[in-house]
């Protein structure tokens, strides 16, 4: 290398370093080259549910970061309705079975799956495909249709909801994962991770009586937080939620959002939904209430987000 060439290269790299890459470009830069900062939220698009989860959990450093050998894990999907997976009423069964497999691979001693369903629980568990998928992956599928499965828990930080009966599978677990599906909801605008908490509670009518949006935020102040909120947006119910009337309510959107920050992951999912159908943040009021409770930020610019396209 002669002196001229050396000076050329020197000048060009100087220019390159001086121009700060735009934020959207940063996502395209291989992640390994970035400075080692903890990931707050991973968003994946364009893959199958299990494939997207494998990619997302890898970004967090693998399941070992959350599940230690011998631990009891509880997974809480949304199995609220007697609907097949194509109708997007419940969390995708492929996603659930992949999470279960990863938990066992990380050394979990037991994985349980349950939901307090709205429709007849036997039919919900069957037709959602979750019971079969979970059992095949080695998990125990627990019922949630009886009050005796729930234990009274105080919620001192709650504004209007001061206590609730919480399913023992959550209370008795070492780690739990909150695995909702992103759906339109007639009452609360959207149902995502925070709204999915209503499935760990026995008396949901109390929520509606006392103010649905505030109660959703209040129950999320439960001390035992999920290790991760894993939002299934593979199929999204854009209208007539949370049940949907037909397949014309469903959009195949192939996305997944994962974060330990519940308010942030729901904010991200809301922004995503907003592209399908207008859904301003202040319609999904419980997000703001959650932020007031200190459950995370709705300002996504403050977070280290990884956006991945498969």
């Amino acid at each position: 290398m002669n002196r001229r060439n050396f000076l050329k290269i020197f000048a060009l790299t100087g220019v390159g370093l001086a121009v700060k890459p735009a934020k959207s470009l940063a996502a395209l830069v291989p992640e390994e080259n970035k400075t080692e900062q903890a990931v707050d939220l991973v968003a994946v698009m364009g893959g199958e549910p299990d494939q997207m989860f494998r990619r997302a959990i890898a970004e967090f450093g693998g399941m070992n970061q959350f599940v230690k050998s011998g631990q009891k894990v509880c997974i809480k999907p949304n199995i609220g309705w007697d609907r097949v997976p194509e109708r997007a009423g419940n969390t995708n069964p492929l996603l659930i079975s992949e999470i279960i497999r990863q938990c066992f691979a990380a050394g979990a001693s037991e994985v349980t799956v349950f939901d307090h369903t709205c429709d007849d629980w036997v039919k919900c568990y069957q037709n959602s495909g979750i019971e079969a998928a979970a059992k095949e992956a080695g998990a125990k599928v627990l019922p949630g249709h009886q009050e005796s499965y729930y234990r009274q828990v105080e919620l001192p930080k709650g504004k209007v909801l001061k206590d609730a009966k919480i399913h023992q599978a959550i209370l008795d677990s070492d780690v739990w994962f909150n695995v909702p599906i992103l759906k339109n909801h007639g009452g609360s605008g959207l149902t995502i991770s925070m709204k999915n908490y209503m499935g760990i509670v026995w008396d949901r009518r109390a929520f509606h009586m006392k103010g649905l949006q505030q109660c959703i935020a209040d129950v999320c102040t439960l001390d035992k937080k999920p290790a991760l909120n894993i939002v299934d947006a593979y199929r999204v119910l854009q209208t007539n939620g949370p049940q949907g009337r037909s397949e014309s309510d469903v959009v195949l959107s192939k996305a997944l959002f994962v974060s330990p920050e519940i308010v942030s992951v729901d904010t991200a999912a809301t922004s995503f939904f907003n592209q399908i159908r207008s859904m301003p943040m202040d319609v999904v009021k419980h997000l703001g209430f959650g932020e007031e409770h200190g459950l995370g930020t709705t300002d996504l610019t403050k977070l280290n987000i990884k956006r991945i396209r498969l």
Partner: protein
Amino acid sequence: MLRKLRIALALVAFAVLTFFFLDFSRLLPESVQVIAKIQFVPALISLSLGIVLLLLLLTLVFGRIYCSVICPLGIYQDVISRLANLFRKKKLRYKFRKARTILRWSVLTLVIITYLSGLGLVLDLLDPYSMYGRMAVHLFKPVYMAANNGLELLFTAFNNYTFYKVDIHFWGWASFGLALVSLLVVSVLAWRFGRTWCNTICPVGTVLGFLSKLSVFKLSIDHETCNQCGLCSFNCKATCIDSKKGSIDYSRCVACFNCMESCNKKGVKYLPFWKVKKTGTDKTQVKTVSGKIQAKTKTKTKTKKRIETDTDTKIEVKTINKTKTDASKREFLSVLMMSSLLMPKALAAGFRQQISSLRPLKRTVPMMPPGAGDRARFNSLCTSCHLCVSKCPGDVLQPSLLEYGVEGIMQPQMLFDKGFCNYDCTLCTEVCPSGALKTLTKEEKHRTQTGRVVFVLENCIVYRNETHCGACSEHCPTQALRMVPYKGHLTIPEPHPDICIGCGGCEFICPVRPYKAVFVEGHEIQQVAKAFEDEEKQDIVLDDFGF
């Protein structure tokens, strides 16, 4: 040999049908409901002519096989008599009893008269299959469910989740009490006298008994071998063998073959009538089988006609006097009893109304299960066997009291205090043996309107508290309650009764008490719901995260 075959078949039929009534976790395939469908009264009422003819033919050829092998109440009595002998030092010896012909025919007449005059209640109460059904649902099933919960407790303690807890069914004191009284009466009679119920009260027993007199195959005592030891009579649970005379009352014989097996001399034989040697029975009766049936059926229709016209009241009055029962008195008494039971409730409701600012609106027309069609049809066809009550996965179908009037006491109605009707479920319409509920496909069910939604704005949480709710709309499968923009970002339900199918999801979940903001009003005649319009399918291509 015949006896053993009878016992084996009867036990299988009995066990399967009983378990079908108890089986809340749906272990049995749905095809076993065929045992409910071949029961005499439901088949007759639903005009399943094939089944009725088959049962009549079975009786005309072999005798009362229905009573010994198919009828669950009959087999139940056999089980009880058998158990009774375990508690006795000496096996009970039955004795020949005189036929209670007048009583039997009076009961049958009463059943027919009341049924034709529009009061199916008497038939519902006395149909042996339905009686047994109610016993199974209201007495045996709670025990089965409690046992399940016991096992659940035990297994779950060892981290095994094979069993799950269930709410033990209790559908009110009236249905429980009725089942208990039926159980006690039938059990006491069976314990002490064998098949007395079948041969004195049971209307099916009377009809089939009459036919079995004419049956081709009959049990008969061979007078040449008979030494009048009386063993056959001792073992006859129908108490119809007069061993001294060597005669058998075929109208009461339930073809159990106990006599045949008990005879040491092999003197009791089961033969076609032409091979029967001269016995104590009336010979002429046997000879003119076919001719007699025709004659008899003719006279039967005649009496029916007479009753219908109601002008020739002589016969009616006579029979009523004889049995000393008075339908109108019964009706009056039952109304009195029910109203005295309901009165405190009504008063309490009135009180609540005063202290609450809620609009006291509630359902006024009771809701029939899907497939019931119109009220008169449903009330006349349903025998209140409560199979649908037992099978309903949402615990929606519950026995009624006076909601349908006296003629519908105990018939199932839809109530939404425990659950709501699953959109895709058609189980009740499939299992109904009497045709009271027409079998519906899933698509037909989706359009069957059992009732229409009524929205009471003044009671709604969104209106009263100005907070988000939407519980009703959330549960609505057709969006007959649709959340529409209200103040600010609030949404409020908007009713679209045309597309409502009356599943009651909204009424079940509405959190307002005691008067809900939403309920379903029943129909006298079920309607076809308008189909909802699908959302326009948009091709949405997402290539950005949106944040």
